[in-house]
């Protein structure tokens, strides 16, 4: 029960926009998609995100499933930003603000009271204030960053090909091919491991969780005895 699952942090940010500027914002995103990857080059190079998305919720399109459910009466439309990124909150916000401030400003261009990503403290405050915490966050590979997943995919494909192509080689040719294979994949051979600590607060939460599990185990033992 936190925003952290292994090497990933799950962020949810919900910010208001005027309903008509929401349309402009949609146009911006449309341009981003049509010109891909031009506007996302910075994001791709930062390479800290597994998956992220921006969803504009028109003020009239909050799901209403039954007559018993009261109708929403909203002034604004909303943008829900959701990201699965590697690193701590501060590290992520910092890196994005340093590296691609104009990109961030474009994505939040029409959001009410958006302060721009520089100076940083107002931006920090804006994100923190509009963030909604995860109650449950699941990550299929807590031990892997997006970089790990991508390099694993590259290595997998190359290794499968190498295993096939090297079978019929003479020993000398194999030795040379092996060296070339390692050289070609030298950037995919980082060691795997657990995530660095996201924060001392998260450390506490994990310790509490661990304590609770141990307590539960002891109680079960006592009951069985």
């Amino acid at each position: 029960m936190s925003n952290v699952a292994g090497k990933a942090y799950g962020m949810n940010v919900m910010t208001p926009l005027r309903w008509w500027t929401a349309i402009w914002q949609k146009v911006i995103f449309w341009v981003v998609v049509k010109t891909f990857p031009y506007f996302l080059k910075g994001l791709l190079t930062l390479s800290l995100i597994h998956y992220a998305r921006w969803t504009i919720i028109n003020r009239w399109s909050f799901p209403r499933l039954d007559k018993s459910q009261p109708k929403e009466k909203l002034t604004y439309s909303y943008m829900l930003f959701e990201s699965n990124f590697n690193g701590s909150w501060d590290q992520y916000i910092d890196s994005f603000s340093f590296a691609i401030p104009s990109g961030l400003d474009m994505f939040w261009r029409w959001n009410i009271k958006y302060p721009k990503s520089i100076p940083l403290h107002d931006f920090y405050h804006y994100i923190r204030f509009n963030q909604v915490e995860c109650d449950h966050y699941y990550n299929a590979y807590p031990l892997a960053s997006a970089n790990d997943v991508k390099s694993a995919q590259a290595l997998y494909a190359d290794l499968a090909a190498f295993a096939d192509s090297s079978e019929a080689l003479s020993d000398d040719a194999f030795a040379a091919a092996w060296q070339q294979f390692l050289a070609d994949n030298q950037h995919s051979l980082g060691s795997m491991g657990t995530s660095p600590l996201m924060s001392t607060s998260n450390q506490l939460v994990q310790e509490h969780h661990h304590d609770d599990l141990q307590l539960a185990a002891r109680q079960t033992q006592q009951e069985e005895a």
Partner: protein
Amino acid sequence: MTMDRALDLYDIQGNICKGYGRFGFPKARYFFLEFHQYAGARAFLQQLIPLITTAEPWSEKDHPDQSDKPQATTNIGFTYAGLSALGLPRRSLDGFPLEFRMGMKNRAGILGDEGPSDPANWDPVWQGEPVHAWLSVNGQSRQAVVDRYRQIEQLLQQSQGSVTIRPGHKGPQGSLQPWQDASAVYENGRVTPKEHFGYVDGIGNPYFAGCGNDPSRLPGRGKLTRDDGWQPLATGEFILGHIDEAREYPIAPEPHLLALNGTFMVYRKLHENVTTFNRYVDRLATDFDGSRELLMAKFSGRWPDNGAPLVLAPDDAAKAELDQQLAQLTAKAAAGDHTAATELRALKAKWIDFTYNKDRHGSRCPIGAHIRRANTRAALETEKDAFNTPSALDDRRRLLRRGLPYGGEDETPADDTEQGIIFMCIGASLERQFEFVQQQWINYSNDFHLGNDRDVLIGANNGQLTDKHIIQVNPKQGKAPFFCTHLPRMVETRGGDYFFLPGITALRMIAQGIIDPT
């Protein structure tokens, strides 16, 4: 970034703007205080203030006139507990950043201080309640250090127990010392810029606006511009009360005068396991295709003997050629050849003024080499023009390195003798600068696309197969990269804490007890 106004160097402590070693102060003594009674402690501080060395400009180190340079320097910093013991108002105390208030010991999980580096194993001076203040004396000679220390000791005696020295630094032959002595390493009676593993250290400190250093030192030390030029980093990256790279004032306590011209400093005693290091290098060198020196250089990114960067001389042949060129130019310059002297200066400038732009694969300087981790020099912008500026991800992670080696004078260095580096670094945000570099770039490698690999020299490695460093190759040459596996713990943390280094005005106000955020 241009300065709107010159810095008041007379209000800034001297160690912030100057690495004293470079100015001819090869000896130092660090000691730590406890305040027991705050009126007495404040009286002590008032008497100490005239001894505090400011950042006032001195003539350069090779300038013939030595008269404006003191024989010894003195600087002071406070922990959060220390400021509290001095009676700083609650509101001012609460304005300090979290990591400073917590102190280094409580940040062990972030810093990778586990196993032999666990705070439980630190020197006795760090056990129990935190120390209150750090005092440093640097001297042109050991005698100058001792003289200044005696002077301060007298002030301590006059405080009648209000202020005492907290002893407990492990020293030679199992001794416990009341202070930590440090000294440049000597070879044949001459000062060297080396540490105990044999590397030339402390090259390439950042250059910031208003620091008062010679502008010729800017290239390689500032931040990179799109046209491959260098600009000074914003003052606020290193000194509070000034605009930083995010065009805002760094997080600082109230009132303004408490923070203005002050900054934060990390003090860390890093023990060097010299036997472990030498054995590891010896063993690996037998398998490595290249000299022992090249292998060592592939760990650090610089040749151990003279600090030449690998991007300049990536193999033994290139290094031999560089050494020859260097020797010839040095001889000619000494004989009065001005052209040679100019060429020599230009060549030496390349020790600092370089990037990794033409070494994307790391075949010259490995991507995980120490200097490429600690100062990334725009290498994270792997796609051209992807970021706001080439070094956007680096400019807010720079560290002003201070400090000196310790030990190794009285006994032959081994794992169980006392030697290493007193690592000190200065920056406006401990969390954003030091802690980030330590955690993400030294003890982790995601930003370098190298998974969980760690720094060879100071990483928290444990001798496992996958505790490794990759020496990359140029894939076109058809040779495999070299894996340095089973990396042992070369360096262990033996203590340290976070200190606030106030400006002179703030120090005076703290001493008078008139800091008032009302």
